[in-house]
């Protein structure tokens, strides 16, 4: 990571052309993550980083990211972009990285706000929650039992959405009853079996919300291969490429997601602005996010990327990620 790579960073927007950025996703080799990171790499290049790296654990456990952060601290990386597996476990090592001069951008899944400079959020958390409750309500006709199949029990983002969903259900959908929340740990097999368990334990279940791409795909696979196909509704957050067959065979009527690539893209620009000192992460700070225009830091040091899209049979073929 030396200054020998100047030639490749002539388009840098001011500041040192030898700045480095490293992305640490929750887990490597996960399709959703790959889309996010693809956007990140593109953003890093566009923002003018000399080099960008992706490192990370092969399993999504709480502490597995720490030694990667440590290695980055020692390597003198300027910007660390992280999707935290656990908001607190990564904190002390991120503090150490900051002491060493690195800027910390959280994306996708937030860390404890004290340990990062900004958090790049997909969308307003509440919007994500509301769109899912709305979709499920439409699909089950506004009343009946539903359940949630989430990722890991500690996932920061999912837990926040679930909280909003519960509130929304109570306030606006009195006839819908949330009977269970289970966790598939973003593991295909586990999610599959959790879905199966839900249906057996709750014979009157009318719908499932799975606010995680692995969970919704596994559940869709189970439903489409069982007697419950067409009888139990399913929605949540999914990748269009993964969900396409299930939308086409009517297992799933509609689901939502933002464009994951934008998340990485904006994170890279936020990192650049922090490293250049153009922003500090204060509320109201504005920075240029390349093709996506100007972004603003809102309450709690959060940058919102864009609204979620709802995918149905009619529009799913327009997307490729």
């Amino acid at each position: 990571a030396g200054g020998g790579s100047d030639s490749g960073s002539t388009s840098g927007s001011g500041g040192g052309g030898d700045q480095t950025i490293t992305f640490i996703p929750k887990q490597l080799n996960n399709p959703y993550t790959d889309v996010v990171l693809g956007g990140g790499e593109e953003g890093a290049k566009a923002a003018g980083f000399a080099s960008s790296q992706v490192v990370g654990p092969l399993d999504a456990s709480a502490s597995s990211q720490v030694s990667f952060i440590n290695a980055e601290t020692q390597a003198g990386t300027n910007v660390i972009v992280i999707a935290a597996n656990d908001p607190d476990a990564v904190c002390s090592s991120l503090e150490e990285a900051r002491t060493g001069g690195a800027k910390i951008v959280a994306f996708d899944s937030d860390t404890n706000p004290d340990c990062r400079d900004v958090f790049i959020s997909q969308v307003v958390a509440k919007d994500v929650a509301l769109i899912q409750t709305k979709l499920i309500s439409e699909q089950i006709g506004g009343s009946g039992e539903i359940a949630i199949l989430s990722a890991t029990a500690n996932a920061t983002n999912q837990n926040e959405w679930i909280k909003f969903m519960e509130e929304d259900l109570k306030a606006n959908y009195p006839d819908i009853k949330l009977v269970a929340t289970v966790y598939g740990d973003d593991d295909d097999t586990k999610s599959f079996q959790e879905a199966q368990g839900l249906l057996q334990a709750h014979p009157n279940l009318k719908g499932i919300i799975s606010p995680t791409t692995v969970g919704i795909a596994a559940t869709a696979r189970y439903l489409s291969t069982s007697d419950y196909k067409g009888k139990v509704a399913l929605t949540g957050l999914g990748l269009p490429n993964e969900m396409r067959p299930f939308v086409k065979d009517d297992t799933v009527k509609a689901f939502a997601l933002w464009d994951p690539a934008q998340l990485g893209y904006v994170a890279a620009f936020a990192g650049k602005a922090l490293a250049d000192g153009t922003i500090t992460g204060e509320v109201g700070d504005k920075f240029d996010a390349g093709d996506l225009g100007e972004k603003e830091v809102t309450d709690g040091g959060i940058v919102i990327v864009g609204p979620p899209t709802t995918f149905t049979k009619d529009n799913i073929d327009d997307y490729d990620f």
Partner: protein
Amino acid sequence: MSETVTAPPPTGTISALAPKKRSRAARLLLGRDAIMIYALLVFVLYACISIPRFASPVTVGFLLLDVIPVLLIAMPMTLVIITGEIDLSVASIAGLTSALMGVLWQAGLDMPLVLAISVAAGVVAGAFNGFLIAVVGLPSLAVTIGTLALFRGLALVVIGDNAVANFPPDLTAFFTSKIGGTGIPTVMIGVLIVMVFFGVLLHFTPFGRGLYALGYSKEAARFVGIKVARSKFWLYVATGSVSALAGVYWTLRYSSARSDNASGLELAVIAAVLLGGVSIFGGKGSIPGVIAGVLLIGTINYALRLGRVSDVVLIIVTGTLLILSVVTPSIFASVRRWQHDRQVRNSLPQVTTSGSTRAEHPAH
């Protein structure tokens, strides 16, 4: 008692080929442990030269912080494996300890009390293993696969899907603090005490002597008065306690108490212990070798991360090292045997001749 009858001539061995006797020092310097230590030194040297920024106190700090849980648990695990047993539940005990710490701290107990209760839970968990294995006499591999699930399950029962993070900052800072400018984490002092304790216990006490006998044959051990059940029981209590300490360390270092802390660590510990030269069948192994094994894996791990080599490579390297560590000696041995056989064939021509000239034994 030295009359005519009592002096049979030295039987059996004829030292035609002078036995190449190594001195004790040579044996120490060429032993299995020594090779592990050389391997570690060579790798450290290599990393210092070829990986930028590796040679720095920061490395020492981060590296040691990473290996401490494995290093801790590997100590009693070495003793357990030397007796021919195994403990797969160690990581689950660490997880259970962590979960308990979280719940108790959340409930507002004082930190010393939280620590005492959590470590006590590890002791009880170890004693439970020990009871089933040593007293009831069940196979340890099977039992600890069961308690691996049980203790992890209890951790889930205790803390569910919550995570507790608000431990006192002073305390968590202490767990990542370094001794002066050396880069050595302060907690290494405690770890060192554990290492010395188990090293002395294994290599310099009657108890340790007994463990090797136990690992070879339970019957043989019982005949020399070794209390087989009791020794094993206490070893499991020891692994339980040390795993609990590792759980405490994990919780406070990451400042996060969760049910899945340290999950999967058992295989890493066993891999390190085996790499350190302990025989999985028992009866062989040493603490210095194991320490070198743990540090070797830890250093390679850290060097690769610093060089931004993917973890994919790391796990392949770990697996390959593990296999090499057991296959290489066996290859060396067969090469040596082959060379020896050749040498013997050349040096024993007179036997063949005498065989063929022994006309009194016509065989045709």
